[in-house]
């Protein structure tokens, strides 16, 4: 409609264009400009301050031979995939439960949402205690008589990332649940009536009718969750500090440590360029299909 592009029509949308100036400026100057700046300096050996001493691909060679970086990527993949799946599934499931005309809905909803208001630093600390084998859950269960009970995810390099996942889901699922609940509230009641008349089981109605109708909600939720996953940093620092050893390192922490602890900006920029590249490879085709094509 408004996208009509007649020859002398460029000025028809002039107010919209003026109104969009902050967005355009942000997109071009900050996101494109900042990214370009980062990419350029990833080819330098900048240490503490950005400097134009170009070293070609040296930073990238070093990055990909670094064991820490490889572990970071693996962790992000595990954490990201599981976090996305669980947050969406659990969030949706809880929303569906809350949507059953129950009592105390406000109470339940607030209980599930409150972790979102707390800082990651303390989320990490609290979960670090609860998962500590000497005075947390393992200790309690053992003192109940189950002597061989073992649950110490944060102290076992093989499963530490799952320990982080427990805390991460605790923090974010409530928000996803609220989004989903909101989506469910938007479903027309007639849909439910119709499916009941046709004798379609409830789970089928959810799966094949309701969820496809909630596409927008899912997109918003996915963007929220994934952008959070890629940036996960504080939680790891607070809960494990990247340990035991380097078994719970993540890319954002690698970037941060390279830039501010090892004072190797170039390395940090190279790592973040790789992260960005990955995001672009995944997001751009999707964004193009989603937003770039024709619309109703």
């Amino acid at each position: 409609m408004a996208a009509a592009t007649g020859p002398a029509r460029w000025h028809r949308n002039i107010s919209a264009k003026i109104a969009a100036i902050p967005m355009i400026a942000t997109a071009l100057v900050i996101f494109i400009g900042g990214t370009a700046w980062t990419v350029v300096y990833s080819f330098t050996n900048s240490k503490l301050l950005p400097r134009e001493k170009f070293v070609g691909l040296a930073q990238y060679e070093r990055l990909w031979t670094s064991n820490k970086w490889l572990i970071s990527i693996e962790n992000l993949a595990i954490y990201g995939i599981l976090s996305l799946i669980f947050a969406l599934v659990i969030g949706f499931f809880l929303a569906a439960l809350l949507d059953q005309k129950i009592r105390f809905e406000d109470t339940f909803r607030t209980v599930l949402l409150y972790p979102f208001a707390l800082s990651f630093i303390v989320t990490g600390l609290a979960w670090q205690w609860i998962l500590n084998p000497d005075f947390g859950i393992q200790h309690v269960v053992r003192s109940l008589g189950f002597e061989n009970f073992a649950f110490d995810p944060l102290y076992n390099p093989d499963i530490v990332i799952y320990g982080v996942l427990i805390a991460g889901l605790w923090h974010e699922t409530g928000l996803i649940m609220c989004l989903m609940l909101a989506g469910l509230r938007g479903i027309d009641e007639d849909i439910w009536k119709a499916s009941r008349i046709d004798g379609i089981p409830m789970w089928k109605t959810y799966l094949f009718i309701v969820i496809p109708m909630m596409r927008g909600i899912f997109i918003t939720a996915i963007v929220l969750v994934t952008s959070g996953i890629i940036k996960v940093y504080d939680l790891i620092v607070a809960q494990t500090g990247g340990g035991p050893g380097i078994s719970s390192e993540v890319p954002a922490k690698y970037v941060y440590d390279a830039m501010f602890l090892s004072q190797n900006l170039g390395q940090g920029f190279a790592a973040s360029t790789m992260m960005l590249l990955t995001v672009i490879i995944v997001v751009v085709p999707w964004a193009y299909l989603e937003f770039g094509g024709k619309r109703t």
Partner: protein
Amino acid sequence: MSDALQIPTPPAAGPSGRKPGKILSRRNIFIYGTLILVSLYYLLPLYVMVVTSLKGMPEIRVGNIFAPPVEITFQPWVKAWAEACTGLNCDGLSRGFFNSVKILVPSVILSIAIASVNGYALANWRFKGSETFFAILIVGAFIPYQVMIYPIVILLREAGLYGGLTGLVIVHTIFGMPILTLLFRNYFSSVPQELFKAARVDGAGFWSIYFRIMVPMSLPIFVVAMILQVTGIWNDFLFGVIYTKPDLYPMTVQLNNIVNSTQGVKEYNVNMAATILTGLVPLTIYFLSGKLFVRGIAAGAVKG
């Protein structure tokens, strides 16, 4: 999604639509049982935090984190709010509270104002290239903040805005823009086109449609955006500390100083009290606007 406008379509229109049955039906046991179990999982860390914040340090050293306090003390709370030292200033979290408010209010207003106009333009007044800029914005949501620190320092320095409140407000506006714009765009797309067309026929322009039709219909989505931004900006530490000076440091700087000091004795009870205190502002907003929150998103994000 027009039924967002018919306000009295209450939660009672739940999907099952069944009549409330016996209290102890299998269905109820399943629903409430699950919800109560999940709530326990969610409340466990809060329980640990509250219990810890009410204990004295000797009791914490002995170390059963689940045990209720033998001797309840509110001293950690008093200390967290009014006495904990961050460097020379021994007035706890209270010091940064008003700075946080001073940062929060303009940042929330400006970021929502700009994002809502963006969303409106993208949904109703698309122009050539508008979707491209939007796609760039969405990709921007995935960039780790740390990477952008130095480029933004340089930009703010060149603009002469470095170190002040204005610069910080702009930074919050920029980083809130991707998600908020997505939210508003989806909301405004779901507003019936007939309303929009009728207004156009009446000769209304960009701004008058926005202020006279869109804004009054969109209270819920504004509330949603406000909740997201209040949580994000209130809990922000990195930007607050990098782009301002000590006289403007937000409350989270004090929180970090209390919680995060590495050398010296760690007072876990004060840490926990400080966290809960800092979380109170967003929590209050969740409580107050919970219902609007849910209805707002329902209206907004359903259609992609």
